[in-house]
């Protein structure tokens, strides 16, 4: 089963590519009550120990498929189910140091059944957790 918090500790780790650490990843679950089409998502930002990452520094991986943030708007038929994690992969050469980190994830999504004024604004959009990176 998933952890209660949105930001998951299992598989929070640095990412290796060709023997080099190219960044880190944060598994994340939506605590909204329904899944979301990728076009309903708005770009996320990730902040670790005060350092902010955004735009093309972040990719989303959902059900094993990786999406650049600008590509999310091209997938109205792909659903991010609340049973499944999205993995944020953040580009940061050298990755994060081992030990504790304060993480913040922020993103918005559209909800058509709410008045247009509240389209992306009603639900929680900032999530925090302190996690330990062990590798």
């Amino acid at each position, binding site marked *: *089963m*998933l*952890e*209660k918090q949105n930001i998951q500790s299992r598989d929070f780790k640095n990412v290796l590519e060709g023997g080099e650490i190219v960044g880190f990843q944060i598994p994340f*679950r939506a605590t909204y*009550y*329904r*899944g*979301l*089409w990728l*076009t*309903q998502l*708005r770009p996320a930002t990730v902040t670790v120990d005060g350092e902010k990452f955004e735009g093309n520094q972040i990719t989303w991986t959902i059900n094993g*498929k990786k999406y650049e943030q600008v590509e999310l*708007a*091209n*997938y*109205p*038929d*792909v*659903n991010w*189910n*609340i*049973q499944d994690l999205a993995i944020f992969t953040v580009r940061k050469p050298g990755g994060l140091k081992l030990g504790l980190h304060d993480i913040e994830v922020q993103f918005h999504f*559209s*909800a*058509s*059944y*709410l*008045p*247009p*004024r509240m*389209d992306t604004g009603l639900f929680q959009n900032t999530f925090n957790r302190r996690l330990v990176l062990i590798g």
Partner: protein
Amino acid sequence: MKFSRKDFLKASAGMAAFAAIPGKSAFASSTVADINVPKPVSNGKPKRGISLYSYKNDLYTSMTLEDCLADMSSMGAYGLEILANGHVKDYPNPTDEWVEYWYSLLNKYSIIPVEYGHWVDSRLHEGRELTTKESYDSLVRDIKVAHKLGFTVMRTKLGVIDEKLTPVKNWQEFIKMALPVAQEHNVVMCPEIHQPTALKSEMVDEYVEFIEKNNTKNFGLNIDFGVFQSKENMMRIPGIEIEPSKPEDLIPLIPYIYCCHAKFANMTDDLVEETHPYEEIIKVLVDQKYDGYMMSEYEGDDHNEIPGYVPDQLRRQHLMMKRYLGEV
């Protein structure tokens, strides 16, 4: 590898064709004829059920789908509502294996698939509304998944255009287009009447007029009991005057109601719900021989820190409803 939208669609179509090869699976993807599909009870009485929405704090973190169905069964709350894009694995394309698992769970716990919650997300694309054809396609996709999973009622949530929750302007067009598909798949699409909308309102009149004009049994109403909530507990929207509906306002609508949301916020230790007039609501439904389900929808304080808090609230509510229904 970069994957364009066109490639994606091509790959999806290829997978669908593969899945349709006869004999590839014990479960044919287009029919549910060879499995036992539990059917809603029709006995001229209101019946108890639960929307899985109620379990949102426990589901997938301290309870599995099976745990929730077992919990419902233990309360005698056999009617089930799901929210398709939260509860159907791999929605909108559940695998045959998952569908088989789904029916095995329903049959194991005597759970009846009653209502399938889904959305026509009018703002699916940033900056524009869905066209009529796109909305229709979205409806058809859900009608097929609902039918595949044995549901007969759909809670069809429409996109809205203002603070009063007025549905998108073209709703009649795409709903009308989908009526034959709904009929073919034996489902009734029901918008949810939810506060701040009142039962006596232009919006409800318009829905009823549409049903009458089209003489259809494939479009109806889902009533959320929140419309009866005491005024001081209702949502506050600047510039909008909300008056609670009265339980007797249900009477002229009974022929059009296929499902209700038994909204509740807090069950006390005396086993009453103080903000919704449950005794009066259920009396009207019993007197009018309402033949559908009441799906519990817990919408009180989260108490996310206490696993099992909501299942306890549900038990309290179901004992209250059993009493008002004369089951005990």
